[in-house]
């Protein structure tokens, strides 16, 4: 003996409406008797009970919607043996769709969205304004790049923003990327595109992520492919300091020279004198560059790196270097570098003296073959002509690609830098 429950009359039936009782309390029922009429989603069905007994109580009124399994009637003697009564079971009300607000309807109409075809995120699928806005959000524009080209560029640290596409509709294809890889002078460095035209549609986070990814790709490639060797020397900056101090007395305050300018210029002129380190390693061979395009590696305060280029830096005088350095640095930090200022350098300099670093053991930017590092200019004891004195010293380092050169060449570069810094008047 058991309760009489809302039967399941089909695999898709979850609830039913009790339409009519065909029995009343006190009636004796037998297994198989029709006791009620139930309305399902399909039709009204007479339902039977599967037990013999006497109807004790009818627990659900006609018109009520109850889920399958809900107790509809208690048979005498069976109530105690069963679990929930109808009071404990959820009674499902008929679902009436709730109309979206007038504002939502208005916006939907403006945007040509068919409300009947959209289910929102609100309760019972009601459309909210945010749903409409989401539907109306324009798809972000994205450069047309074939999947293969995208993969190649990522693996080789190629900045897609500077590759011109030759495919349909200007799409970048694999060959375009391969050309960019083979012709480094034409390609922009992977690092630095954060301010480039292709990044303008991105927000700060996306830019930072993109920059991080390109730094990661390029540095990984460098460490994977380039057998670095490292050299270091200490240079006495007394003569340069003195000479600059002298010059600065005559210059307006805002145009005063700082030691970095002298260091950059020395690096550029040394690269001209040691052309074996000024150029690129491409397809298994070193290709010297015609000019000394000096990459100035700038660490941004917010993280990330930019490498603006001082084109033909060896041909500049120190005031020009100072002015360019000032201008590039300011614009780099403001995110206003031009694409041409981010072209591929022939050699790069990392000057971390202002960060208080003593020496820089650099990672070469492929396909370049050398990176010159400058540490802080620090007054230290130093022997000159057999006498100990306090001199401003700087540690100059070289990270070089062993595939392109050996240490003797590297040493020559460092010696040249030293020589230049000892004869500041020639700059």
């Amino acid at each position, binding site marked *: 003996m058991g309760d009489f429950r809302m039967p399941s009359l089909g695999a898709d039936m979850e609830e039913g409406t009790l339409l009519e009782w065909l029995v009343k309390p006190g009636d004796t029922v037998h297994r198989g008797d029709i006791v009620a009429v139930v309305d399902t989603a399909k039709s009204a069905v007479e339902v039977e009970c599967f037990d013999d007994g006497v109807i004790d109580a009818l627990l659900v009124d006609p018109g009520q919607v109850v889920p399958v399994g809900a107790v509809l009637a208690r048979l005498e003697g069976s109530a105690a043996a069963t679990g929930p009564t109808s009071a404990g079971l959820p009674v499902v009300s008929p679902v009436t769709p709730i109309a979206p607000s007038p504002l939502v309807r208005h916006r939907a109409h403006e945007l040509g969205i068919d409300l009947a075809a959209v289910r929102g995120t609100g309760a019972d699928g009601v459309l909210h304004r945010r749903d409409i806005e989401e539907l109306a959000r324009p798809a972000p524009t994205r450069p047309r790049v*074939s999947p293969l*080209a995208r993969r190649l560029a990522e693996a080789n640290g190629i900045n897609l923003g500077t590759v011109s596409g*030759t*495919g*349909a509709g200007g799409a970048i*294809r694999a060959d375009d990327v391969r050309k960019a890889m083979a012709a480094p002078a034409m390609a922009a460095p992977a690092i630095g595109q954060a301010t480039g035209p292709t990044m303008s549609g991105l927000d700060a986070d996306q830019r930072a992520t993109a920059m991080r990814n390109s730094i990661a790709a390029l540095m990984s490639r460098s460490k994977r492919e380039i057998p670095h060797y490292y050299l270091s020397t200490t240079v006495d900056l007394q003569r340069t300091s003195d000479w600059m101090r002298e010059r600065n007395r005559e210059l307006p305050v805002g145009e005063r020279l700082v030691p970095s300018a002298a260091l950059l210029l020395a690096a550029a002129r040394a690269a001209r004198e040691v052309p074996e380190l000024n150029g690129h390693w491409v397809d298994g061979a070193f290709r010297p560059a015609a000019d000394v395009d000096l990459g100035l590696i700038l660490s941004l305060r917010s993280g990330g790196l930019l490498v603006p280029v001082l084109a033909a830096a060896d041909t500049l005088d120190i005031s020009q270097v100072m002015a360019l350095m000032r201008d590039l640095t300011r614009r780099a930090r403001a995110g206003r570098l031009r694409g041409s200022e981010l072209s591929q350098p022939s050699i790069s300099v990392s000057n971390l003296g202002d960060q208080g670093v003593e020496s820089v053991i650099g990672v070469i930017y492929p396909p370049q073959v050398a990176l010159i590092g400058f540490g802080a200019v620090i007054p230290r004891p130093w022997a000159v002509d057999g006498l100990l004195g306090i001199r401003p010293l700087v540690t100059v380092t070289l990270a070089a690609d062993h595939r392109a050169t050996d240490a003797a060449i590297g040493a020559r570069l460092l010696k040249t830098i030293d020589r230049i810094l000892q004869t500041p008047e020639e700059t």
Partner: protein
Amino acid sequence: MVTKTAAQSATPTTTPTADGARQTTYREALREAHRDALKRDPRVFLMGEDVGRYGGSFAVSLGLLEEFGPERIRDAPLSESAFTGAGIGAALGGMRPIVEIMTVNFSLLALDQILNNAATLLHMSGGQLAVPLVVRMTTGAGRQLAAQHSHSLEGWYAHIPGLRVLAPATIEDARGMLWPALEDPDPVLIFEHGSLYNLAGTLPDGAAEVDISRAAIRRVGSDVTVIAYSGGLGKALAAADLLAAEGIQAEVIDLRVLRPLDDDTILGSVRRTHQVVIVDEGWRSGGLSAEIAARIAEQAFYDLDAPIERVCGAEVPIPYAKHMEEAALPQPADIVAAARRAVAPNG
């Protein structure tokens, strides 16, 4: 090409050559495959409309009635559902029936049996009832047979789990697919393109069985992968010749097996060429070409250097008039144009 006389001859017309290879036709290769199977296995019999006295509507079984008798070459009434279902029952009863249905359009009358029984019984019975049935039918257009004898519906069958779907496009496959299909413990459908029966060529000596699980690379190339099958293969190869003259090296894949698709061969080629053209005489919407394109996009997306191109039958019932029928079907020029779009930088 072989003449009508040869096609209707009941006796083998293959001509041996010096090295043991023979000049023959697709039709004769099919007939030889039947004769071989009927001789090798007493459980094998052929059943279908006009397969006996008439010799087969496409003359594939010409002469077999005389050789094997009416018990094994059974003319059936025009009851596609009944004799296809009888093939299923006979397979359950231990036989190895070959059911011939005249064209794929007529097979729709037997679709209930093929889908609801042949492809389903094994699974629905919890592994108890395997159905080693072979169903052969003609597919494809190109013979001005209009809209009820010309369609390419093999893609529909390739949709159905449990079926192996074969599409021999060469004489060697026509000769070699039947026996492994009969040896398969599960149902196999073989689609013969109506335009291929007269295809003439050389059959290597001793060719009897081929692998019915792999696609074949019919021409190696480096610039673009052209995927075709059945009647489309010849057109793809013709297109590859034209492309080669322009300096574009097309790799031509003959699918051979429409279900299960040989993903390895398809994807392996795409990973080398990075450009794809899919040729399917069937309709584009929801068709076999769509399935192949989707698999490439799913599994070789980062190897693609251009959008996938499809050359499909026009979305019309096949018309009768010759020029209209030709316009409705993929042609070598269409394949060439698609390959150019895929390869050429400014396509």
